[in-house]
């Protein structure tokens, strides 16, 4: 039994570990001959307990990361599901291709990207990662293999995208990459003084900019409520060097003491971060690495939250009344004094994912980190009330606390996923949210 963590480092779990090495192999049986359930585990970059299977069996996939085929004409790549987005970029960028969409870290596996149906800064134009997956193979505990495409085994395809690893092991997948002429991004950073200005900027940017996201100061209140920095960018059109990124040089070498991140340090950081930018539009040309992956530059950055770890709270609410909801959420957070410097605000587009359990909906999404202190869960309960009564929902990939009743109401297709779940697969998250309310 080993100790296994998610990126939030809470809850702590111990699991039996059976790494997967070959996509041609069946799922290994337990070494103790027990009937414990399985769950695939990539690089553990999700938060909460969606990648955890406490007291049961983890199937790490990163050793199963071979590249199997690449069509340089269409940019379609087929790889084993343990391949990371980092590895795909190392392969694709020098050849003039890029990921069709990417989350804020490249240290996730393709399997994890599909299982959480991740989204990126260009969701408003291209939808989720699941929208870019042409087909994949699903391996069940009984040895059955299914080729899943939008047309063939379409139900398995829809169940597995966003299916949180519960339908079985994704052995290999085919993803459509997109062409690039350069590794650089033409970007613009714009300071906005409040939420109104954010919505104006968002509306003005979504059409012309493929990638948009905002950092928000979640401690600012009153007239400065919702002030932040809007970032928008496009892949540079002018041909340039197709240089990949370099591995992280820095690392947080040990867990920081719990008091390091508190309302005072966060307030100070936010003031500096917001203040550093001039007003108006700041244009720059940056490598894709700092544009998409600012935090990847520091290994183990989650250690700044100390041994107790942290929670991430990410929700989406529909556009209608969305602004009022965000305002209320930010007010509650500012009043609580909790909250961290990592607060991200973005609008989702209308492109529908094929996944039954996909998180995005047309609307606004806000993601925040909170150090794991006793005041956090009561705050979440208050935030939940606002989010759910507005018809919104939380992102399973980030969640560690939502109530079963809220989950089941906001993801009505959970029962369909339950019927497609492999009877020998389960997760801490699933056991938590599928309880009888």
């Amino acid at each position, binding site marked *: 039994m080993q100790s296994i963590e998610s990126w939030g480092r809470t809850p702590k779990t111990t699991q039996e570990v059976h*790494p997967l*090495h*070959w996509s041609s192999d069946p799922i290994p049986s337990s*070494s103790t001959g027990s009937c414990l359930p399985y769950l695939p585990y990539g690089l553990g970059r999700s938060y909460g307990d969606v990648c955890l299977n406490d007291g049961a069996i983890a199937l790490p996939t990163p*050793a199963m990361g*071979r*590249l*199997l085929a690449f069509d340089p004409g269409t940019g379609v790549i087929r790889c*084993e599901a343990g391949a990371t987005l980092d590895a795909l970029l190392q*392969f694709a960028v020098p050849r003039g291709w890029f990921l069709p969409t990417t989350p804020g870290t490249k240290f996730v596996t393709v399997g994890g990207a599909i299982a959480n149906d991740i989204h990126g800064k260009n969701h408003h134009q291209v939808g989720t990662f699941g929208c870019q997956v042409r087909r994949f193979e699903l391996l069940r505990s009984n040895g059955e293999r299914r080729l899943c495409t939008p047309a063939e085994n379409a139900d398995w395809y829809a169940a597995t995208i966003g299916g949180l690893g519960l339908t079985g092991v994704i052995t290999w997948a085919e993803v459509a990459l997109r062409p690039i002429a350069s590794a650089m991004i033409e970007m613009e950073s714009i300071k906005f003084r409040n939420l109104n200005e954010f919505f104006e900027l968002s509306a003005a940017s979504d059409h012309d900019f493929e990638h948009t996201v905002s950092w928000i100061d979640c401690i600012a209140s009153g007239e400065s409520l919702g002030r932040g920095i809007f970032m928008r960018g496009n892949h540079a059109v002018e041909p340039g060097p197709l240089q990949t990124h370099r591995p992280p040089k820095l690392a947080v070498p040990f867990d920081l003491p719990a008091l390091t991140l508190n309302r005072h340090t966060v307030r100070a950081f936010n003031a500096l971060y917001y203040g550093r930018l001039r007003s108006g539009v700041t244009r720059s040309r940056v490598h894709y690495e700092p544009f998409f992956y600012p935090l990847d530059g520091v290994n183990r950055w989650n250690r700044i939250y100390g041994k107790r770890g942290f929670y991430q709270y990410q929700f989406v609410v529909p556009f209608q009344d969305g602004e009022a909801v965000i305002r209320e959420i930010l007010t509650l957070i500012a009043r609580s004094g909790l909250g961290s410097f990592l607060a991200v605000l973005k609008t989702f587009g209308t492109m529908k994912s094929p996944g039954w359990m996909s998180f995005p909906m047309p609307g606004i999404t806000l993601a925040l980190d909170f150090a794991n202190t006793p005041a956090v869960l009561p705050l979440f309960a208050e935030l939940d009330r606002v989010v759910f009564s507005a018809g919104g929902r939380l992102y399973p990939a980030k969640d560690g606390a939502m109530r079963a009743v809220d989950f089941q109401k906001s993801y009505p297709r959970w029962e369909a996923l339950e019927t497609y779940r492999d009877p020998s697969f389960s997760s801490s998250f699933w056991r938590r949210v599928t309880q009888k309310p």
Partner: protein
Amino acid sequence: MSKIILIGATSGIAQAIAARLAQQGAELYLMGRSSAKLDLLAADLTTRYGQHGVRVETRAFDFDDFALHHPAVEAAAKALGKVDAAYICHGTLGDQAACECNFALAEQEFRNNCLSPISFLTHLGNLLEAQGSGTLVAISSVAGDRGRQSNYVYGAAKAGLTAFLQGLRNRLYKKGVYVVTVKPGFVDTPMTAAMPRSPLTASPDAVARDIIRAAQRGTPVLYTPWFWQGIMLIIKAIPERLFRRLTL
């Protein structure tokens, strides 16, 4: 372009060797027991390194049927034309306790780790001798340097292999053929997956880098990582009367 045979190509260390050789644009002939795994490995090498000019051919067969070894080596030589190097990388780490109670299991460990490599080395040795050039590389183990309570079945098999390689090196040097004995310590591969990781555990890629360099130089014996040479020097120096009391 280098023409290279990899036997036991799907092993953890062999995969890392294959990747490095492919990056140099080698022509590879991969042998293993599983055609499914060889196909995956070949696909990965050609997808990643096709631009470097790598060419890959595979052959799957039951390694435990020793009669199949010679035809396999002949087929490889025919496909490549010339053999610049052959790496023998397969092996198993059996359950020492189970082997103590059941000789059939110990016998199988000897077949896998000692006799099977010796069989391949016999055919390849004769081939390279006739060719008058080339390098043979076989992965033995630090475990073969001294029999220890905790894994002497594996250790004895590797000790047999080490002595065979020593003699083969002696015979073939006069014919222009190099024989390299590789003695890794703990390496992070599927074979050692059940063992706890320690600061001494090496990555397959680091070990592969050392092995290829040794092959290029014709180094007789390689300890990888380097510090195992010092460790084993000490272990080997312990007098038997003292060693028999230890629990290593």
